[in-house]
């Protein structure tokens, strides 16, 4: 398929709605870039920009001790000294502790990057599972008992954090996932 604007092959498709009408554009990389359409190369960084500087998160607090009752929102990781601005530029975190330091900011970002996925589900290092071998028995959800238990634990933890930080949309999604797995959110 050719680009709508030139003779090159179209590799980017953009769909938008204007006045109730769906408009589909087929463009080559160059024309897409000229129109300000992200072609994927910097998609993640752009997503970070949107989430971190958009109106919904203008209130990201620049504190160093965590917010009252909520998930920590730090401007700098206390372990590796990476700033959230540095992360916004490179898309890369500096150490494992960055996940805890920037948890409040990373939550929505991660959820969007993983199509609604909010908590880990799957393999757990043996050291973490206290040396217990993974159970080969599968549950109705397709997960082993071990996987299901680990996922429920993670989801419950996340539900608690989402409620504390008043992220009710996230909390509702987590609650649904817990119910789907047959767990209780209490």
């Amino acid at each position, binding site marked *: *398929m050719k680009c709508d604007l030139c003779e090159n092959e*179209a590799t980017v*498709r953009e769909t938008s709605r204007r006045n109730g009408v769906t408009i589909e554009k087929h463009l080559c990389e160059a024309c897409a870039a000229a129109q300000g359409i992200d072609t994927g*190369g910097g998609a*993640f960084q752009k997503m970070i920009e949107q989430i971190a500087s958009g109106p919904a998160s203008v209130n990201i607090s620049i504190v160093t001790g965590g917010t009252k009752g909520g998930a920590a929102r730090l401007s700098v990781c206390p372990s*590796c*000294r*990476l700033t959230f601005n540095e992360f916004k530029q*490179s*898309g*890369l*975190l*500096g*150490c*494992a502790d*960055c*996940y*805890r330091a920037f948890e409040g900011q*990373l939550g929505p*970002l*991660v959820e969007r*990057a*993983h*199509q*609604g*996925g*909010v*908590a*880990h*589900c*799957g*393999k*757990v*290092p*043996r*050291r*973490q599972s206290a040396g217990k071998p993974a159970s080969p028995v599968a549950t109705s959800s*397709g*997960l082993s008992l071990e*996987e299901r238990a*680990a*996922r429920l*634990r*993670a989801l419950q*933890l*996340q539900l608690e954090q989402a409620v504390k930080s008043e992220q009710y949309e996230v909390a509702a999604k987590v609650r649904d*996932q817990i119910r789907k797995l047959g767990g209780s959110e209490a």
Partner: protein
Amino acid sequence: MTKPKPDGSNGEGPAAFNPLPEWLRNEGEAADVVLSSRVRLARNLAGHLFIVKATRKDRQRTLEVCRDTILHCSLAPHIAWYDLHAANPADRTLLVERHLISKQLAKGRAGGPGAAEDPRAVAIGLPDERLSIMVNEEDHLRIQTVRSGLSLAAAWKEIDAVDDRIEAGLEYAFSPRFGYLTACPTNVGTGLRMSVMLHLPGLRLTGDIDKVKRAAADMGLAVRGFYGEGSDAVGDLYQLSNQTTLGKSEASILHDMEHEIVPRIVEYERLSRRELITRRRVGVEDQVMRAWGLLTHARLLTTDEAMGALSLARLGILTGILKATGGAAIDVRTVNQLILLVQPAHLQRVVGRELDQEQRRVARATFVRGRVCTAS
């Protein structure tokens, strides 16, 4: 070049590689469409700074810790270890062309000044090259296993066991909520990327390839070219992979890819090939035979031209067109092997000396002509 030693003590570069690595063997399920299945795990070490914040000294320490574990936990019959900061650029390119390391690892961190000296390495399972482990890429460890054809389950089983063995000697960075912690949050969770290399000439010729790309994007899958991120789909070769790594278990990702998504694309490609044969036979014959003419008679060939012609020759073999039209009795494995050997670093290895771009075009045409005419 000397043969790499399994104890990893060499660092002299890749020498005696398998002429037909696992991913080009044309074996396994749906090998007419699926060249290979690849599974990758991203892992980081607890207590070690991630690459972006690590100093050269930190990265050297990480590399040494990883090397001690990888070389002493019996991951494969023979493990070759290459310190890439000590390797020459041609060898690094050779490893990229063999899909054993990424371009990023070949260049070094961010590709900036002094990046080539960044401590980084790759461990490769020999002789089949099914296992490779990149050290100090974006994450401390990028473990990869590959299988010919559609065989993600076997690749997953192997990498899962490798992961367990490595984890017995190293502590991974992990959190109950986010799973395996990775430098980029797009890989966090399982750290798992399952991908298949698809040969889709039929869908390109029928014009349906864009529909497949759109459908894949709608399902949250990434479609990339032959050499991964940012590369073009030369030779009608596409890499299809999952993007979601958080909130979906390994079993669920495997099931979706191996039993739901890939088989549908395979069927679509096969249907396209059948339609081309029954409804547009002369047109397809023309394309295949023009490509055959290029492979057997051209005096100058670029990599992309060679890849395009090999793709059509592969289609010609699999649909019987090449044989029926008196083209040749060349087999798919030879074509697969040529896909690798026409790449710049491999071509120079075959010829045995460094060549500039123009010299490579001549050498490529001569080499392909010789190989194709001998095979047929």
